[in-house]
Each structure stands twice: as structure tokens, then as C-alpha cells.
């Protein structure tokens, strides 16, 4: 069931959600003016998925930029994942950041402090 595949633009990330595989990925930039509208279908799919999640859910977040309007939507996704985790399924959030991007690492740590799900901070080489 539920499968989302959204191609990225200069303002919105590439999104892959595969409920069969239990994988959610956000990659690229998330700086739309109206983030709620963009994230709505993703939040909804994750909502449906949370009714019968896989034993293991893997989330990859690899963002170059995200605006504050997206940050609340990303938190919504994470809260949904938290409830899946609370329900007894394994969830891991892999948070990727470029090696010199302290702000992005810190942003990941901010979420980690709020959300009760295992996070893994993964450094990637600088993409010049």
C-alpha cells in the first residue's frame, strides 16, 4: 500500500516513502513558502502507515537547507514516528549532514532532544 515518490525542486525535497519497505527519505532542500501544503500528503501517508507499521522503519533525512516553516512539519513527521516507536516497532532516524555544516548537525540534535526515537548522525563529505 502507500507509496510516495516526489521529485525534488529548488524549493522542495525529493521524497520517497515506501510503506512496504518501511522506508521514508527526504533529500535536498525544503524551503517552500507553504510547507504545510507540501508535507500534508506525507504526514497523511505516515499516519496510515502507523496503523500497521513494519517491524523496522528506516528514515533518512539528508537536507541541504530547510526553512523554519518546514521545521514544524518535519517535527510532525517525527512525532508520528515517535508514536510508531512507542507502539513497539523499531524506528531509526538517520540524520545526514555535510562535515562542515555544524548548523545542520545542531538542527538534528535539536530534534533528537525533543523526539524519543533513536537518531544516528551521519557525516557526509562536503559536496562542492
Amino acid at each position: 500500500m502507500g507509496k510516495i515518490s516526489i521529485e525534488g525542486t529548488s524549493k522542495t525535497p525529493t521524497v520517497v516513502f515506501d510503506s512496504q519497505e518501511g522506508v521514508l527519505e527526504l533529500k535536498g532542500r525544503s524551503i517552500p513558502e507553504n510547507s504545510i501544503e507540501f508535507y500534508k500528503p506525507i504526514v497523511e501517508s505516515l499516519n496510515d502507515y502507523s496503523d500497521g507499521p513494519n517491524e523496522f522503519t528506516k528514515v533518512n533525512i539528508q537536507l541541504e537547507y530547510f526553512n523554519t516553516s518546514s521545521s514544524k512539519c518535519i517535527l510532525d513527521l517525527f512525532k508520528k514516528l515517535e508514536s510508531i516507536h512507542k507502539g513497539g516497532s523499531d524506528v531509526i532516524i538517520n540524520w545526514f549532514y555535510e562535515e562542515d555544516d555544524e548548523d545542520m548537525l545542531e538542527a538534528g540534535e535539536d530534534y533528537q532532544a525533543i523526539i524519543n526515537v533513536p537518531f544516528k548522525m551521519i557525516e557526509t563529505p562536503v559536496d562542492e
Partner: protein
Amino acid sequence: MKHNDIMLSFKGDVTSEMLTSMLQIMEAKLDNLGEPSKMKRKVYNVLVECLQNLYHHRDEMKRIGIDEESAAIFMIGRNDKGYNIVTGNYILTERVESLKGKIDHVNSLDKDGLKTLYKEVLNNDERSQKGGGGLGIIDIARKSGQNLVYDFMEVDKRYSFFSLYINIV
């Protein structure tokens, strides 16, 4: 006066298309200058928040009948120390006190204080229609690492002009 190169300035209605163009121009300029990726990211992040702030206040401006051509100003300059951004827009005079209080509070906090406040606001359930829910100013302060300088000029009882000066060094 310190030498300051103005890289882009704009006056008018910040539409979605305009915002996108300005971001594209600035990104290309930052690339051409060969700015280290760290500085590039900070400037770009602050630009996004500033321009989207202006964009989100468009409707309010229209409601109070501000002429579109003078709805907002935006300027970004560069000097030997770093970048400076100026934004200006009309706001309802009744909102001045709360916005002033918010910026003063942000300015009173150090790095850790800003981080704590950011997490608090991120995690509260309040949000504005477009989603930000008051995180913009905090994020700008965190990324710039400098106090935010502002000015409010009362135009009349109904509206005031709000200017914000941001330094990124």
C-alpha cells in the same frame, strides 16, 4: 563609511516568483564569489527566512491597503567583515509592541539560550497559517550569531514601518 557593496536591492511586492528569483540570483552570486560553503549556507538560510517573512506579510499589507509598489524593501550588501541584510515592511501598529518584545528577548539570549528557545517554540503546538509559528526571528538570530538591530517608525495610528538589520560575520 565602511566600503559596502550592495549585491541586490528590491522595493515592491514580494511575490512567490520574486522571492524565487532573488534567491536564485543570490545563490549564483555567492557561488561566483567563491564564498566558503559555511558562510554561503548561513547567508542563504537567513535570506530565505527574511524573504519569506516579507512574503507572509503580503496579505496583511493588502488588507490595510498599502500600495504594492512600496509594500516592502530588501537589501543585501557585503563588506570586508561579512554580509548585511536590511528588510523593511509595514506592520499594524498594534503588533509593534509584541514584535519588539520578541526581538528584545531574542537579543537578550546567548547561543544556548537561543537553542533552548528554538526547541520550545518548535515543540509548541502554535503555528501560523503558513507553518512557521514564530521560529523565523529565532533562527535568523541563531544563524547570524549577532544581535538583531531594528527600528519601528509610526506612520500613523494604524500602521508602522518595521526595519530589521542583520549582520552575518
